[in-house]
């Protein structure tokens, strides 16, 4: 019988022979995959590695310096809420940094939004949801104005947001009054950063997230594998799921232990604010990684002219990232107010902004635009919070804290710049 391959199949065979996407079709083993990873590192694609190594180093350092207190149950819980405002602020900044801009006013925008909330609570007697919506709206309006000035008038964002950095502090001062603080006593708002979810709910969410994450990765791997598309080796996918699941479950375990100072009461569970960050992380990761809008943000940061020629409305993308940045700043301000039970005139001032930028950059977001992920804010936020917390436990003098944080920020920026040089050198 003559070999009678149907025409379509013949074409497919031809195509396979013709294409040579060898790297995509090659069966990866762990060795070749590790080699690929090593080459990527050498080419300046560092990913989350520096942040994870930094985290590990800091935990070891502070545990050895303060063995009784640093990893105590109470301090771990404290650490988790300490990281919340920085992380949320940094997550908004990731969007702004991705298009290659900067928002120096994000910190004080969070302060102003929080004071709007506090004033409405105390003087306006408004319910919590009205005040929260107003605070977030304040942030979004600030972001819209900044974005308009930057993308339509083309004033450098550095200058616009420096002006806002000063101006917004003035408005906060006017709103709250010299040297004053406004107490925040609403039960719901205070609960965000100071109350914990029930133990069972924490476990249920942790298990659901671990399974969901693993399933998402595995299903994607299978789809790509079946269709012969580019995919990571299965061992890597499994390892990645295992690491994330372990991190989730171990932190849930530690946070679920009874950490009450007295045996008469029990105190345990994951703080509600952690859930908030988790939700923001999932939403932002989805928007940046899986939607055309997210893709266009990366494109504008990578090459604005190419994005324009591809029909992308560059001005609209630029305005929108400032809106997201300041909107998330407002959320960060609300969480900070919840944690402190008050809003002061200097809320979000001082080194808040630098901490948040530092968090994003330490996590792996580039200051040059076009590179970064939502998770960078979480990893970097943890690093910054651990430094702040550890130095606090050590009783370090203020001058030294400033110095150390400055050095860490500079280190992260240096690594970013060096990695960028590597990447440009990699293309011939």
């Amino acid at each position, binding site marked *: 019988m003559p070999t009678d391959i149907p025409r379509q199949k013949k074409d497919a065979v031809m*195509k396979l022979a*013709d*294409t*040579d*996407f*060898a*790297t*995509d079709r090659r069966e990866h083993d762990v060795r070749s995959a590790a080699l690929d990873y090593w080459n990527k590192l050498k*080419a300046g*694609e560092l990913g989350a590695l520096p942040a994870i190594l930094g985290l590990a180093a800091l935990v070891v350092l502070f545990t050895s310096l303060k063995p009784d207190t640093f990893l105590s149950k109470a301090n771990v819980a404290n650490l988790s809420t300490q990281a919340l405002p920085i992380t949320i602020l940094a997550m908004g900044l990731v969007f702004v940094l991705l298009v290659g801009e900067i928002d120096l006013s994000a910190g004080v925008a969070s302060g102003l939004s929080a004071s709007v909330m506090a004033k409405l609570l105390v003087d306006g007697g408004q319910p919590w949801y009205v005040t929260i919506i107003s605070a977030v709206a304040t942030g979004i309006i600030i972001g819209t104005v900044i974005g308009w000035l930057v993308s339509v008038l083309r004033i450098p964002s550095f200058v616009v947001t420096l002006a806002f950095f000063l101006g917004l502090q003035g408005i906060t001062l006017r709103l709250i009054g010299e040297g004053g603080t406004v107490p925040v006593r609403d039960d719901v708002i205070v609960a965000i950063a100071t109350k914990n979810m029930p133990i069972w709910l924490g476990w249920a969410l942790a298990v659901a997230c671990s399974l969901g994450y693993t399933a998402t990765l595995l299903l994607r791997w299978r*789809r*790509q594998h079946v*269709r012969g*598309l*580019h995919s990571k080796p299965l061992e890597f996918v499994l390892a990645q799921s295992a690491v994330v699941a372990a991190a989730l479950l171990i932190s849930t375990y530690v946070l679920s232990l009874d950490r009450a100072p007295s045996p008469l009461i029990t105190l345990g569970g994951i703080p509600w604010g952690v859930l908030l960050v988790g939700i923001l992380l999932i939403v932002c990761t989805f928007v940046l990684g*899986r*939607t*055309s809008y997210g*893709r*266009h943000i*990366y*494109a504008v*940061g*990578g*090459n604005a*002219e*190419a*994005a324009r*020629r*591809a*029909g*992308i409305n560059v001005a609209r993308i630029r305005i929108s990232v400032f809106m997201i940045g300041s909107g998330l700043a407002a959320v960060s301000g609300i969480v900070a107010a919840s944690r402190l039970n008050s809003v002061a005139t200097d809320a979000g001032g001082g080194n808040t902004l630098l901490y948040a930028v530092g968090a994003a950059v330490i996590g792996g977001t580039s200051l040059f635009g*076009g*590179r970064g992920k939502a998770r960078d804010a979480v990893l970097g936020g943890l690093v910054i919070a651990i430094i702040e917390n550890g130095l606090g436990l050590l009783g370090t003098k203020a001058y030294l804290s400033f110095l150390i944080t400055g050095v860490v920020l500079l280190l992260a920026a240096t690594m970013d710049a060096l990695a960028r040089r590597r*990447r*440009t050198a*990699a*293309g*011939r």
Partner: protein
Amino acid sequence: MSVTPALDLRGIGKSFGPVKVLDDVSFSAYPGEITALVGDNGAGKSTLVNCIGGVHPPDSGEYRFEGRRVRVHSPRDASLLGIEIVHQDLALCENLDIVQNLFLGREQRNGLTLDEDMMEEIARTTLSGLAVRTLGSARRPISTLSGGQRQIVAIARAVLLDNKVVILDEPTAALGIAQSQQILEVVRRLADKGLAVVLISHNINDVFAVSDRIAALYLGRMVAQVRTADVTHRQVVELITRGTGGEVGLRR
């Protein structure tokens, strides 16, 4: 037998203020053929291409596309007709990979989310249709590609959707010999697939190696549109430098 030109411009005039950059220019490009557009610096090649692409609409003249009179007043109009220009500065996003660049601004979606698998498959089919064997992975970031590979990605972007006319502005100007050769092969393949290709080039050897027709601009006027087989290197050089060469060229 006469074929309808894909692109047929007649009596095109274009001025920038008092400067007349294009004067009564006629130009055609045929499906399945490479039309080389040659001319010295400042002759008006890029201006003509910008008129075709809707970047600078012409002041006067007739614009026909596949025999129909059309109005092309923006790059979008040109795009809708199926006319794509690969500009000399390629404008790719270095931080994105090949697939992401090919689909930039026209991502395939599955509801709200990007359909990455589908985009990767179409990208591969397009690239293998150009018989490109050297990219390794369709997921390589542009930052790791050589100049020639980037040029191929830019060309693939122009032919990804069902386009009819592709215009390449000096695609080999920045490349070495081997890479230029590869690009020219790809350009030839585009024409063999039935596209009307317009190739702007300074390199007379390249022009003779791949083109079917040559259109020569001299100081904003079209001095000759000839079949490549009917002229010599020397005549073309003279057309470029003096606007006349042998029997062909400017009627004085």
